[in-house]
């Protein structure tokens, strides 16, 4: 039994495994599968100021070892999340959650953050400045360092909780983005969001996803995520929660070796609702086998090279 406990700004986690935003609803859906208190924390479905239906169907397609989605930030809006969704979660979950915020204008982010950061169940905020599936806004913040810094600074000014900024992999220079949000006061970075991808129907020639492009995630993006986490953690001094393609305890450990202080598991939760508890168990087993007593001994182990 290795020590898996990790502490990050706003989060004191019994293990470093967190379901990623958008793949775990508001958490309570998974309570029918297992005791969700096993989790280190959880990232809630992306929340916007106003309710959003999101994109037309189909929203899902598939790729080799991965999936594409274009949900378009469907959510009931910040007030319903605070008053209804989190209340449904309250009896089922005792640790702090990470609220994920989407938006298309700085004011939206700020107002949503202001409200969510007051909630007692929320340990930290995660700013999704990288959603590829929302027209006007969203991804622009995630590909332009100035805009990313601006939204980070504005949210930091109002938030009562630590703020993590979620980076997009669809950029030429991820380190530049990371440095910009660190400089702007981010308490941590979460990365990566999905890669923009497409699939086509052979018969009609039509893009399978109604929104045309979708966000590609799953094991297929794992090597890209590892590379970016490695590069960013070499450059910043705030902690990074690594995600992108983690499907096993082995993958989670590799991500932490690359530099991540904790990991998030995205679409593997959809394929296997038991993914997170399995990953926690596997991490434990692998660390035992390697004779490692504390997870901190592997965080950023690649740094020396």
């Amino acid at each position, binding site marked *: 039994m290795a020590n898996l406990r990790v502490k990050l700004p706003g989060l004191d986690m019994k293990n470093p495994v967190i379901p990623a935003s958008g793949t775990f609803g508001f958490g309570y859906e998974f309570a029918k599968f297992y005791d969700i208190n096993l989790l280190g924390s959880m990232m809630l479905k992306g929340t916007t100021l106003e309710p959003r239906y999101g994109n037309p169907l189909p*929203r899902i397609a598939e790729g080799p070892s991965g999936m594409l989605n274009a949900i378009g930030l469907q959510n009931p809006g910040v007030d319903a999340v605070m008053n209804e969704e989190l209340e449904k979660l309250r009896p089922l979950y005792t640790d702090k959650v990470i609220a994920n915020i989407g938006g298309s204008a700085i004011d939206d982010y700020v107002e949503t953050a202001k409200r969510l950061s007051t909630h007692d169940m929320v340990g930290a905020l995660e700013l999704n400045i990288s959603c590829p599936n929302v027209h006007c806004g969203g991804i622009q913040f995630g590909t332009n360092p100035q805009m990313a810094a601006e939204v980070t600074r504005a949210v930091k000014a109002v938030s009562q909780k630590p703020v993590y900024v979620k980076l997009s992999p669809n950029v030429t220079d991820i380190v530049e983005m990371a440095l910009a949000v660190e400089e702007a006061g981010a308490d941590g970075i979460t990365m990566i969001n999905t890669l923009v991808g497409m699939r086509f129907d052979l018969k009609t020639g039509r893009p399978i996803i109604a929104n045309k492009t979708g966000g590609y995630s799953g094991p297929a993006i794992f090597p890209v995520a590892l590379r970016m986490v490695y590069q960013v953690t070499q450059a910043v001094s705030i902690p990074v929660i690594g995600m992108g393609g983690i499907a096993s305890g082995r993958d989670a450990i590799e991500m932490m070796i690359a530099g991540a202080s904790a990991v998030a598991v995205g679409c593997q939760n959809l*394929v296997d609702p038991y993914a997170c508890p399995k990953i926690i168990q596997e991490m434990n087993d692998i660390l035992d086998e390697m004779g490692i007593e504390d997870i901190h001994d592997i965080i950023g182990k690649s740094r020396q090279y």
Partner: protein
Amino acid sequence: MGNYQGMMTIVSRKELVKDVYEMVLEGDAASFIQAPGQFINIKINDSLQPYLRRPMSICDYDQHHIKMIFKVVGEGTKILSEKKIGDQLDCLTGLGNGFVDLECQKAVVIGGGLGVPPMYKLAKDLVEKGVKVTAVLGFNSQNDVFYKEEFEKLCPTYIATMDGSLGTKGTVLDALKENQIEFDKYYTCGPEKMLDALVMAYPHNGYLSFEARMGCGFGACMGCSCQVKTKPYKRICVEGPVLHSSEVIVNG
């Protein structure tokens, strides 16, 4: 905590017509099924490829068995069709709402193509409840027809084929009219175009089972949310796949 997951063993496999297979799975996870019209979500391979599960309607079930009928249309169904007796499949079972309102006098169950399978167990349950049931099954052509005999054993059964090679020439709607079938409720599953046509023709008294490309099949990803008249949205995998005709937004 419940449990909707289990390993199911393939105990029979039969090609009904070209590329359409009937497969029976055995395992305890069958016991999570609560209503006809629910579906299962199958991990096709142990490996990462194909990545997502494949949703399949439940054609028939008991506490230990699930029967499904599927057509080979792509990679996943191809691999599934090549599985051997004794192979195991990781399944999430008892997903979706299913057909729960079986209260009526005269029911018609309407299946189009690969929408036929879920109608089978539904028809059985309706018959068992003493409802007068008629079945209307639509296919492209005589060569595609399956489960005609199975339905005929349960209830009067009419066939429609687009090319007229068997039964009524045309759609299930044509067959409904041609045979002057009376019903106070209809239950249906089939291609979206067929469902839309039914909703427009009979907006008040039907239950329709929809398909959507799914990320999870159990409510976590919002991949399948469709707009309905009664709510901001319903997830086909949880609040569906069965919707009432009065809430369906055609082309929604």
